[in-house]
């Protein structure tokens, strides 16, 4: 049978990656020196499963790589090997290598052989580095397995030679579900065998425990079978039997055993079945005729039937015949039945001679009914069969006489007393059931073969059945609403009553649609633990690398967010955590000097707030050094020498392109990527990032992200003839402009005094170069928005409605535009652009500030320099 193993690979990869995650997190959990046995066992199990699966599914590179890993873990598990820091480190890096290997294989990419070899060597060294330890057993096993095939030919005899096998199962071998018959039959399938049974140990029937094994066998095997193959047959029962296998010269027949082999009858199953089926319709007549003839020809048997009627006997005989023919292919059952029958017959006082009488009569009757079909072959078949039946039944007598006489005829293996059988004379080849099986399964197997390929590059999400059920329920309601609304389409006129119902229906439709949308969105929602789970490892590795002691605390791992957002937030988060560890947390010495615990803490926290998910990265490190940041910003020309900034503004400088306070590029976070990129990436997800810090106490980076990239609660605004969408979450309030509250700060533009705040005004028409209705700050409205801790007053012509909008990307067919996060399609089919509030604020700063109630009626036609390349590669942002 050929089964396409690739169909299991998708599952295998999936569970292997899960296994690797478990290995990683458990390795990180290991207490060096006092490793918890169950933890090691869990790690071992994961490696073990990957190895087993990869071997089975033909990923040999993975299998051989995991082998060493598994061996190491096995030794740790058995207490043969200490769990050292070094071992954990090597195992952790091998988890990475393995993950890469599996990814490459899954995505059909070339393996990084160098990395694998290097890691393998590391593992090997770790494994063999133990000088006193015996070389691991599995290793020798492996070599053994390689050598075996080479040895095989040597073992094979040059000329005809065989084996003499002495096989004595221990008393309780049957209790492990092993049946000597199976082994003897297996030997028989390999070569011609001749079997001798030793019944010396067989107790009397009264003492016989059917659950125990009393027999032993001497088996002679011819043909060129290697000893390994022979031993293989007994592999499972090695310890449950006495087994000797000796070379045996000569053929089986030559050294005939002292067993009388009369004629070696064989069952010709097909012929028997065929001929019986031919006469079966006449069954009742046959049995009637049989007894008639039997009593006629052998009147001496008549007394044996004294206790029964001929009618009853006829029914029994017919049943017995049917049973025998029906079970020709089922020797165990047949023998069991015949043996039982034999025991009963003996009780009736039936002797061997009687069997002959029966056989003769039956043959004669059958001949009569079969007519022309009664050929010599058929006759032989029946005659042989009856002989065999007689033998089996008579054997049962002898068992009753405290000896189960297993007459060995031809190739017949025996038999366990548990089945109370004496011998079986049925050859395996006459039981075609065994050979037809593979054909069936092949057909079935191919029929089931799925048409899908290896599934390279497919992404999938696991969705809990609850979410799907919810979806189905909602769709169900939608269908009901639809059919309800559908009625109105058939009406000629709408009465008032109808109109009310129609309105109700539309309200219901709206509710259904919203629910449906929410259900669908929920399907894409995954707990943020999928992203968080990589951090324990990261913190562990980085702590070692930086020589710092850092503890990671995570909370809110179950907070859900959209899968797409999750995929994209990973890298910025890694960057921020690295940054906290590199620049935030001080060295142990510094911490002790500052009166802090030696062990620093990084908190990773996620929670929902409004329509957003908030992720906080908090450290108890040194905090931001405002002076240092300011000095750096000035020297980098980010701000003027005489500018004064609030603390928040100073902290925000971290996110400015081209800012870096790192004195030297560190190995950890100095990768030519700055916080500006982090912010840009977060903003591209429609999110924001800000930092709050207290010097000497620590810093907190707060990321706010929309739960989904697909839908947005929006406020529509109008500027001139254009409609824009402002994310509702960022709007604080909208105000009518009181002209007296507008102030102009030299060099910093217009601000609006709102209660105690001075809020910079951004004239949207100006920033976007539009023709607006109101260009002076006495008409129009100010929409106060907040992002990243900053408030901005957007000057717009009008507020329109609020609605949910489906976010469409501008980048699919065009490109990113500063100040915009995307577009949407309004109810009338036109496109409205969605404002990116944070980006807009930055954009407004780039544009030469227009102030006053000036005459800027003209839209600007100068283009904004939005060249991304202008952003210098900043090394990094050092803090402490």
């Amino acid at each position: 049978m050929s089964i396409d193993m690739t169909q299991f690979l998708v599952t295998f990869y999936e569970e292997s990656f899960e296994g690797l995650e478990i290995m990683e997190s458990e390795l990180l959990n290991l207490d060096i020196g006092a490793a918890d046995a169950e933890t090691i066992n869990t790690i071992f199990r994961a490696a073990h499963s990957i190895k087993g699966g990869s071997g089975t599914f033909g990923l040999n590179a993975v299998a051989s790589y995991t082998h060493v890993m598994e061996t190491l873990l096995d030794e740790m598990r058995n207490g043969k090997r200490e769990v050292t820091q070094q071992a954990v480190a090597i195992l952790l890096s091998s988890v990475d290598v393995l993950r890469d290997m599996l990814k490459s294989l899954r995505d059909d990419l070339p393996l990084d052989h160098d990395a694998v070899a290097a890691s393998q060597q590391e593992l090997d060294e770790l494994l063999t580095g133990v000088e006193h330890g015996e070389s691991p057993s599995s290793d020798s096993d492996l070599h053994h397995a390689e050598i075996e095939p080479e040895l095989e030919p040597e073992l094979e005899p040059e000329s005809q030679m065989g084996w003499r096998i002495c096989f004595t199962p221990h008393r309780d071998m049957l209790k492990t579900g092993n049946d000597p018959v199976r082994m003897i039959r297996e030997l028989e399938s390999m070569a011609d065998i001749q079997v001798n049974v030793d019944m010396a140990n067989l107790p009397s029937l009264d003492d016989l425990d059917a659950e125990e094994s009393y027999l032993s066998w001497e088996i002679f095997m011819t043909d060129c079978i290697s000893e390994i193959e022979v031993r293989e047959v007994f592999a499972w029962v090695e310890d449950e039997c006495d087994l000797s296998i000796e070379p045996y010269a000569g053929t089986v027949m030559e050294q005939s055993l002292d067993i009388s082999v009369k004629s070696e009858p064989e069952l010709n199953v097909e012929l028997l079945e065929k001929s019986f089926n031919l006469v079966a319709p006449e069954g009742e007549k046959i049995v009637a005729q049989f007894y008639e003839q039997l009593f006629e020809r052998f009147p001496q048997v008549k007394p044996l039937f004294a206790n029964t009627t001929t009618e009853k006997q006829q029914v029994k005989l017919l049943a017995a015949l049917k049973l025998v023919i029906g079970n020709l292919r089922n020797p165990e059952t047949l023998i069991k039945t015949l043996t039982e029958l034999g025991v009963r017959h003996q009780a009736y006082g039936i002797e061997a001679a009687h069997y002959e009488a029966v056989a003769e009569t039956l043959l004669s009757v059958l001949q009569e009914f079969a007519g022309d079909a009664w050929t010599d072959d058929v006759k032989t078949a029946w005659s042989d069969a009856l002989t065999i039946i007689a033998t089996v039944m008579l054997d049962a007598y002898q068992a009753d006489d405290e000896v189960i006489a297993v007459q060995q005829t031809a190739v017949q293996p025996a038999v366990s007393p548990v089945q109370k059988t004496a011998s079986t004379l049925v050859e395996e080849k006459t039981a075609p059931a065994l050979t037809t099986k593979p054909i069936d399964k092949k057909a079935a197997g191919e029929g089931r073969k799925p048409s899908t390929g290896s599934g390279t590059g497919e992404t999938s999400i696991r969705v809990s059945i609850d979410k799907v059920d919810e979806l189905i329920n909602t769709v169900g309601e939608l269908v009901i609403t639809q059919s309800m609304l559908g009625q109105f389409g058939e009406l000629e006129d709408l009465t008032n009553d109808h109109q009310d119902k129609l309105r109700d229906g539309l309200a219901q439709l709206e509710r259904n649609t919203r629910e449906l949308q929410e259900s669908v969105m929920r399907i894409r929602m995954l707990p943020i633990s999928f992203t968080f789970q990589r951090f324990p490892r990261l913190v562990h590795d980085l702590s070692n690398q930086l020589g710092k002691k850092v503890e990671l605390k995570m909370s809110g791992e179950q907070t859900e967010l959209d899968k797409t957002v999750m995929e994209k937030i990973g890298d910025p988060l890694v960057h921020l955590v690295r940054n906290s560890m590199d620049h935030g947390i001080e060295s142990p010495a510094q911490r002790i000097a500052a009166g802090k615990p030696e062990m620093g803490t990084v908190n990773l926290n996620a929670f929902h707030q409004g329509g957003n998910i908030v992720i906080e990265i908090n450290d108890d490190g040194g905090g931001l050094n405002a002076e240092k940041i300011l000095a750096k910003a000035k020297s980098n020309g980010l701000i003027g020498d005489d500018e004064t900034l609030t603390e928040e503004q100073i902290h925000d400088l971290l996110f400015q392109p081209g800012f870096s306070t790192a004195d030297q590029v560190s190995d950890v976070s100095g990768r030519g990527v700055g916080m500006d990129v982090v912010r840009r990436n977060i903003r591209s997800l429609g999110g924001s990032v800000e930092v709050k810090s207290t010097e000497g106490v620590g810093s907190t980076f707060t990321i706010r992200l929309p739960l989904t990239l697909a839908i947005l609660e929006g406020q529509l605004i109008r500027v001139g003839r254009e409609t824009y969408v402002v994310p509702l979450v960022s709007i604080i309030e909208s105000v009518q402009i009181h002209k007296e509250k507008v102030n102009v700060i030299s060099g910093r533009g217009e601000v609006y005094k709102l209660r105690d705040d001075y809020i910079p005004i951004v004239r949207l028409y100006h920033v976007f170069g539009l023709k607006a209705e109101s260009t002076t700050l006495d008409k129009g409205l100010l929409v106060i928005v907040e992002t990243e801790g900053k408030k901005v007053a957007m000057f717009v012509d009008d507020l329109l409605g609020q609605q949910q909008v489906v976010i469409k990307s501008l980048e699919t067919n065009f490109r990113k535009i500063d100040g915009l996060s995307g577009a949407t399609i309004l109810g009338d089919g036109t496109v409205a652009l969605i404002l990116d509030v944070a980006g807009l604020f930055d954009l407004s700063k780039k544009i030469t500030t227009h102030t006053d109630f000036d005459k800027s009626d003209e839209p600007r036609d100068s283009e904004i320099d939005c060249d991304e390349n202008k952003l210098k590669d900043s090394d990094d942002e050092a803090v402490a």
Partner: protein
Amino acid sequence: MATILAVDDSASMRQMVSFTLKGAGYEVVEASDGKDALDKAKGQKFDLVISDVNMPIMDGITLIKELRALTEYKFIPLLMLTTESGDDKKVQGKTAGATGWIVKPFNPDQLLATINKVLG
């Protein structure tokens, strides 16, 4: 046709074993650990149990021991799936009452050949 209980914590191995055996006409019930298997075995009589050794919650050795203690499973073939390095597991398994083992990695043909032998 015989009904087989396939026990493995690895879903891909379970899939493979189950697919292969079903293809050969056997009825197959899957269980993901020893405990799961034991519960299922108590609710339904299987003609053969084939179990992985290393599993969470209840391992294969314990499963075999527990099954053997049940009257219905006294003589039922119980096979373990082990690896070539699992010699000690084989011994433990045998002591617990396992009929025999199949060594991983194995292919569907090997699996079927063994099962067919055991189920006769």
